[in-house]
């Protein structure tokens, strides 16, 4: 856990005072709507469909039991007793009152939390691998680097009014669990011999123009991380488009310039910055490193498995390997059927805080798949933890499976949404409620976004569902073949600078899905998914071949035929109408 020093604390306190003043001026009519909008957004405050929405930062997804209890109490006191974990590893409250937001921020500051830059045209929360620090395939603990980037990007004087939001992801392991290929900047730790550095990807992103990031620098020695980021950001701040919000992300600039031209511009800028005062030293790294508390692991042996049915399927899906013998990481599923994906009640938050205290050193992580992770559980405690988690409704053994649906809040809450997401997720979960069948289908990412802003990351779901509006009605478009990143790398993962090595295709294994055809009514979606699954099971060459692998091997046609062939027989007229819609 990162522990604040006096400067960190002062900054969040001063931020609360600043926002209190801004809110007061707005309510007094001294700040216009437009001015206050830019200011409130960079404090995570949206004006939503039914109420404001407050997005609370959980830096790189790391949270203590004490903080989670505070979140539970805030949700109870200022909201309706629940919160929503987002794909950016943050927590959203859907019903706060504008006038009370400064008080909420003050309460957050009392537990070293804030809502700084969780929205608006600024740097957003830096995200990373939810198994950071415990994964066996890790080259470097990304938390230290996340914190370095968090500090650098917090209240950056030059880059506080960017053309558009800016998301950075850092991955420290060989497998990419941070989806670096679909971020404005993705940093993937690599080693060149003994030297640590980063492969830098730029220009990825989802939203209405999904683009996979490209490698701008194959190997950036760690000392240069901040100066190089500064060079990229300066080029973006000056030349990123500001005339059209839909073309303002850095991905558009990179695309319009071409990666080679863009790289030249960045390098020209970097030539002036490369050895500036922002160059990092080992002292800097150590200073940040020592501010993290680390679990005091016991010396343990790996445990043999108990054979309780139910426990086994949970163990198989929700328990993950740990680099320290005798320990394991555990995912608490927030994807129980009937509960909106990522939602937790205040009571659950309190209970989870207790679980983390008793089983995992009082810490937990939020995953970008909207689940919670207890990263440091003794293997001998797994069964006891499972029983407790099950009693709380947090032990659905579906991590990595079809019902582990990633979804935005959708039209039930969000003013931007074209369509609802949560009922779709629920209908799919209800259809696929047979665990044995789910396990047989195997690994499958299903993502739902209620509009093309793509908060549910539907472009990188193995199956992606997008809510669209057609003449005021809610319809759903289906994509298949997307992939968030190379979560199953082969080979040693080391880079070979100088272009001799193999550059991963595109953005680190990230791939965008392809639309299978005309969109569907909400009620048809479970059938559509079922048909896609039937086609997959029919075509896979073994159980090891995942849904997404089959799509990549045989293309979308066989899936399309299966879906529209069936739909066509059942509802020919509507399909024809849709085809011309």
């Amino acid at each position, binding site marked *: 856990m990162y522990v604040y020093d006096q400067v960190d604390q002062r900054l969040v306190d001063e931020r609360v005072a600043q926002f209190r003043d801004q809110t007061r001026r707005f309510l007094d009519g001294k700040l216009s709507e437009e001015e206050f909008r*830019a200011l409130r957004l960079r404090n995570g405050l949206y004006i939503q469909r039914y109420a404001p929405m407050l997005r609370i930062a959980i830096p790189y997804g790391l949270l203590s039991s004490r903080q989670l209890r505070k979140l539970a109490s805030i949700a109870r006191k200022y909201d309706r007793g629940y919160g929503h974990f987002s794909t950016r590893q943050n927590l959203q409250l859907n019903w706060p009152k504008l006038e009370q937001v400064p008080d909420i921020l003050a309460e957050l500051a009392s537990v070293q939390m804030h809502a700084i830059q969780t929205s608006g*045209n600024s740097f957003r929360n830096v995200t990373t691998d939810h198994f950071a620090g415990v994964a066996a395939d890790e080259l470097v603990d990304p938390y230290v680097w996340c914190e370095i980037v968090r500090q650098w990007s917090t209240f950056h004087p030059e880059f506080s009014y960017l053309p558009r939001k800016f998301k950075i992801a850092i991955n420290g392991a060989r497998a990419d669990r941070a989806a670096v290929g679909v971020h404005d900047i993705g940093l993937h730790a690599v080693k060149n011999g003994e030297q640590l550095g980063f492969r830098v990807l730029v220009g990825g992103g989802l939203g209405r123009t999904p683009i996979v990031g490209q490698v701008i620098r194959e190997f950036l020695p760690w000392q240069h991380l901040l100066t190089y980021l500064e060079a990229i950001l300066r080029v973006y701040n*000056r030349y990123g488009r500001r005339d059209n919000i839909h073309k303002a992300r850095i991905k558009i600039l990179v695309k319009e310039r071409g990666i080679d031209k863009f790289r030249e511009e960045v390098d020209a800028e970097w030539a002036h910055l490369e050895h500036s005062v922002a160059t990092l030293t080992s002292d800097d790294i150590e200073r940040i490193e020592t501010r993290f508390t680390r679990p005091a692991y016991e010396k343990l042996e790996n445990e043999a498995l108990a054979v309780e049915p139910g426990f086994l399927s949970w163990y198989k899906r929700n328990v993950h390997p740990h680099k320290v013998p005798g320990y394991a990481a555990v995912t608490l599923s927030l994807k129980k059927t009937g509960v909106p994906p990522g939602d937790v009640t205040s009571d659950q938050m309190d209970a989870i805080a207790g679980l983390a205290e008793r089983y995992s050193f009082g810490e937990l992580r939020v995953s970008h798949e909207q689940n919670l992770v207890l990263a440091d559980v003794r293997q001998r405690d797994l069964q006891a933890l499972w029983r407790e988690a099950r009693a709380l409704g947090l032990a659905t053994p579906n991590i990595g499976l079809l019902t582990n649906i990633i979804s935005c809040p959708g039209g039930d809450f969000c003013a931007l949404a074209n369509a609802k997401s949560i009922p779709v997720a629920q209908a799919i979960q209800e259809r696929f409620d047979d665990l044995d069948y789910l396990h047989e289908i195997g690994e499958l990412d299903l993502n739902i976004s209620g509009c093309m802003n793509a908060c549910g990351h539907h472009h990188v779901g193995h199956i992606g569902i997008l809510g669209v509006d057609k003449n005021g009605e809610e319809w759903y478009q289906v994509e298949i073949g997307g992939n968030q990143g190379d979560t199953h790398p082969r080979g040693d993962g080391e880079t070979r600078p100088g272009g001799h090595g193999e550059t991963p295709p595109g953005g680190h294994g990230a791939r965008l899905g392809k639309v299978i055809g005309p969109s569907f009514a909400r009620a048809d979606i479970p059938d559509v998914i079922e048909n896609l699954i039937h086609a997959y099971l029919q075509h896979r060459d073994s159980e090891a071949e995942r849904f997404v692998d089959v799509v990549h091997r045989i293309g979308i046609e066989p899936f399309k035929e299966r879906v529209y062939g069936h739909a066509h027989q059942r509802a020919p007229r509507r399909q024809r109408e849709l085809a011309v819609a």
Partner: protein
Amino acid sequence: MATLIKGRRVVSESSPSRNDKIVRLEPGDDPAAVALEGVTRVEINFPKFGDGRGFSIARLLRGRYGYTGELRAVGHITRDHLYFMERVGFDAFELREGEDPAEALAAFATFSAAYQRA
């Protein structure tokens, strides 16, 4: 009359003398192309509240091009910008109508520390 802050004080604008050489830059202008010789004041315009290009221009003028004269932010400026603007090198600010001058001065002390070294 808009409030003018210079050197963290509210001042009234004196009319330019013939020795003053003033350059005004728009957000899209390239500071590399400005002849800074003999210039006494550079004004950078912020036409919209959220347009941050002027911050980079200021940084470049001060850092890379060694400009030491007055650097004035003009346009849609409220107290909420002052802290960042001062940090990138502005030393004069023309606030938009309706800003309370005394309250605005307090904004320079919004944050008492910074994470960035430069």
